[in-house]
């Protein structure tokens, strides 16, 4: 059974398009990335799933239940972390977290120990007033309130902004632990390296439509390698003319730069005959892949 399944999910804000015919199926135990530039429709999709806005077309199920009719029941098992965090200013961290926990059917003692455990791990002072917290610390409150009821589905809408790299790593580790315990994760971001680090599969969204859904691992396999060479003396371009699977060849003085996908031995044979100063073989990051898909579509 798919944990999240959407069928031609569509949202118009008046006349302007939010998302169009979004089809997603996210499997149990998956860490699913949702990536696209700002305004592409990531938040719209997530807000529909969370019942904050209503779809104008299509349907969606979570845990096999229709989101329109089983909202509260579904949300019992979802941990949601929005990108912007706003809480009741007059509350202390502990009050807010207890208030958050009080909505769930879980045993208050379990929630209390989760709060303790998570706040220790995230290094957050529970006695402070929310109002007095720094942006990064508010984000930590956001993370803890989303995880304190041990949800089976974690939905994150650009949750990492404002976290320092160390804390971000801790946060990702935490998510991985939850994932190993069986939680499914939907992770939306416009930062590709984040998604690359964490996710199994990723949906690329632009202009309100899903362009592609791809496995992160297959992306890396099937994708071009970037090869950079620096020679002692300028060489004859023709040496590379018959190389199969090469693209984007540039030569600038002693530097050679090209993308390659094919038999790596073919490259090494040519390179073996050169007098090299330096050589780099790089995996292009998702950013490049991403641009690749966008360009293809256009």
């Amino acid at each position, binding site marked *: 059974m798919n944990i999240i399944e959407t069928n031609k999910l569509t949202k118009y804000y008046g006349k302007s398009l939010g998302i169009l015919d979004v089809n997603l199926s996210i499997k149990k135990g998956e860490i699913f990335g949702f990536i696209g530039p700002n305004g592409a429709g990531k938040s719209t999709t997530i807000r529909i799933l*969370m*019942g*904050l806005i*209503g779809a104008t077309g299509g349907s969606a199920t979570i845990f096999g239940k229709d989101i329109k009719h089983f909202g509260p029941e579904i*949300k019992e098992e979802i941990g949601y972390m929005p990108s912007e965090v706003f*809480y*009741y200013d007059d509350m202390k961290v502990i009050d807010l977290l207890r208030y958050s926990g009080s*909505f*769930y059917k879980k045993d208050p003692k379990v929630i209390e120990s989760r709060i303790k455990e998570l706040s220790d791990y995230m290094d957050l002072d529970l006695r402070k007033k929310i109002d007095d917290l720094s942006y990064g610390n508010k984000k930590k409150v956001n993370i803890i309130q989303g995880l304190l009821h041990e949800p089976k589905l974690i939905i994150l809408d650009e949750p990492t902004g404002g976290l320092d790299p160390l804390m971000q790593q801790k946060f990702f580790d935490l998510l991985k632990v939850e994932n190993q315990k069986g939680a499914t994760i939907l992770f939306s971001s416009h930062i590709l390296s984040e998604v690359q680090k964490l996710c199994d599969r990723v949906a690329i969204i632009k202009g309100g439509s899903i362009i592609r859904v791809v496995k992160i691992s297959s992306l890396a396999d099937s994708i071009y390698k970037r090869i950079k060479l620096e020679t002692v003396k300028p060489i004859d371009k023709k040496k590379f003319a018959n190389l199969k699977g090469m693209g984007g060849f540039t030569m600038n003085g002693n530097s050679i730069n090209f993308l390659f996908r094919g038999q790596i031995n073919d490259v090494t044979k040519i390179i073996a005959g050169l007098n090299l100063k330096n050589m780099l073989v790089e995996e292009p990051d998702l950013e490049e892949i991403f641009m690749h898909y966008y360009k293809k579509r256009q």
Partner: protein
Amino acid sequence: MNIFWREIKTYRGSTLFWTSIFCLIVIVFFMMYSSFSNDVTGLQKTLLHFPVAVRSAFNISMQSFFTIYGYFAYLITFVSLAGAFQAMNLGLGMLAKEDGGKTVDFLLTKPISRNKVITSKLIATVILLILTNIVFSAVSLALAAVFSTTSLNSTTFLLIAATLFMIQIFFLSLGLLLSVVLPKIKSIIAVSLPTVFTFFAIGAFGAIIGDENIRYINPFKYYDSNFIINNKTYDLKFVVVEAILVVAFIWISYLLYSKKDIQAIS
């Protein structure tokens, strides 16, 4: 229950504030009552010089003004004006405060239906108003018992006191409705102040031109003190009018809010 207690906690300060204001108005007015009731004939003469329109605008009835009931009904005019603000702020604040404080995302992504959110908040605010009114009525009745020169009929007196609650319920439900209908409420007072004053002005205006029908659209005039003093009950047709309006306001609020799009924070 969690939302209920959260709401009670949020508003306990302001409820205490409003309750004190109401009690203060009653105390000040009743302190003046003894000197006022000593010279009834002199005052009656002075008041007769006032045009009828002015008298009715200020809810001064020559028939009953000089009794403790009439005097109390007169001061209730001011209390209910303030009370309308209290109620309307509560009604508007229920949902608008979550929206304005941007906590609405937090609340509505919890496992609770929107209808339950409104219900919890509605019960909490009604209870706050009931508490306000219990204190206000008790303080008023005690003061009246002390200052009244004649024997006091507590039924009549409490019926007049309870008009505050009746008016507040109207403005509570109107506030709730407006908070759902209006797109984005930046300041609650900016909505409640003109609304309450408009209703109050309509009432005063209606009394001046003497148009009876205007009473139907004005909660301040639903519970006429002379009628209560003479009949020891409310005018039933206005109770029905208010009940219909209140139920309609609340029902529409539930209906609209359950479908409302909660826009992302920008």
